């Protein structure tokens, strides 16, 4: 979080985390596609030649004036592939909120759990407070072999974090997830300033 009182700017960082190919970049692409171009920046993607995220994707949203402040939301994704471990941790640095994008494919339960545990370990090592707003998005709900919502939530151990279903490639659930994480982050800002 970064506040510039001179400019009345409140800058917040939200990171989309999750296993490879779970739909993190797709979430940002959908947000980019469905938001007013005057109120968002360009989508920055650092990709490999195979079109996979190498370092991060980045998108800034501007929400206009709210209660005298100009909030700017910075959305980042991490690279999902397992060998980009170091990069994932770097992108998480300074996060004000995290969206964990899980893959509902029954065959990818292990990948989800590994990524979830990995995320929690990074948050601890970065000294990010445990009350960090965290939303779980269960993506690819349209798959014929999608795992049951309750079962996946229990397997991950989401422990009260809000869970949203999504089909990000169709834009379904993307906006609700975004609203939920921003809501959580704003409430935490208020708590933090108290």
């Amino acid at each position, binding site marked *: 979080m*970064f506040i510039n009182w001179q400019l009345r700017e409140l800058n917040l960082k939200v990171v989309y985390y999750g296993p490879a190919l779970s739909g993190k970049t797709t979430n940002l692409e959908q947000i980019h596609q469905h*938001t007013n171009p005057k109120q968002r920046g360009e989508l920055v993607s650092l990709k490999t030649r195979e079109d996979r995220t190498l*370092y991060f994707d980045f998108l800034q*949203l501007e929400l206009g004036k709210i209660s005298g402040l100009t909030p700017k939301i910075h959305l980042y994704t991490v690279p999902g592939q397992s060998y980009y471990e170091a990069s994932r941790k770097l992108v998480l640095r300074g996060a004000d909120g995290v969206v964990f994008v899980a893959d509902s494919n029954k065959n990818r339960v292990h990948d989800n759990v590994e990524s979830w545990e990995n995320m929690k370990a990074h948050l601890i090592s970065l000294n990010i407070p445990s009350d960090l707003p965290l939303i779980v998005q269960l993506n690819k709900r349209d798959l014929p072999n999608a795992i049951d919502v309750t079962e996946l939530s229990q397997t991950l151990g989401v422990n009260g974090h809000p869970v949203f279903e999504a089909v990000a490639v169709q834009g379904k659930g993307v906006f609700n997830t975004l609203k939920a994480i921003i809501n959580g982050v704003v409430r935490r800002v208020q708590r933090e300033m108290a």
Partner: protein
Amino acid sequence: MKFQQSNGGHYSLRSGMTIYPSQDKLISETLTDLKQKLPAHLIVLVDVTGQVVSAQGDKNNIDLVSLGSLIAGDLAASQEIARLTGQYQDNQLVLREGQNFHTFIIEAGIHLALLVQVADSVPLGWGRMLTVKAAHRLAEIAEQQPEEVEKSKTAQETEAMLGEEALSDLFTDALDDLWME
């Protein structure tokens, strides 16, 4: 919502960073001074998460928002490379020599990163020396506590802006306005 005042009326963040108007002024002065002395083609100061704090120079055709995220990512990657190879030290500086321009990226304390771009006619040693000096100064400014008057004024504004009960609802409304089906 009522905020509890602490530290003599100062509302502070437990994490992240706040820049007060007095600090903003000092930052601008430092960057202006650096730009003139080098001279610099472009200077961009960002916080470590990539949010642009201030920029000077030829920035008209540059997407500063995207650049901010890349500066922070670049510095973070360089720091990690240094750490993994056992060469990490504070105030690390990365230099990119170009055909027409040279680019310095340096930590300015724990919260900030500074990009300075100079023409190839500027001697590298001169560029390096002034960039390091400016980074030290910026780090000092970021750590400075504002005067009591400014703290108090900011405290009132904080309560007015962030104390709004329905603030998260206002954000939700703003997001609804932003979204196009």
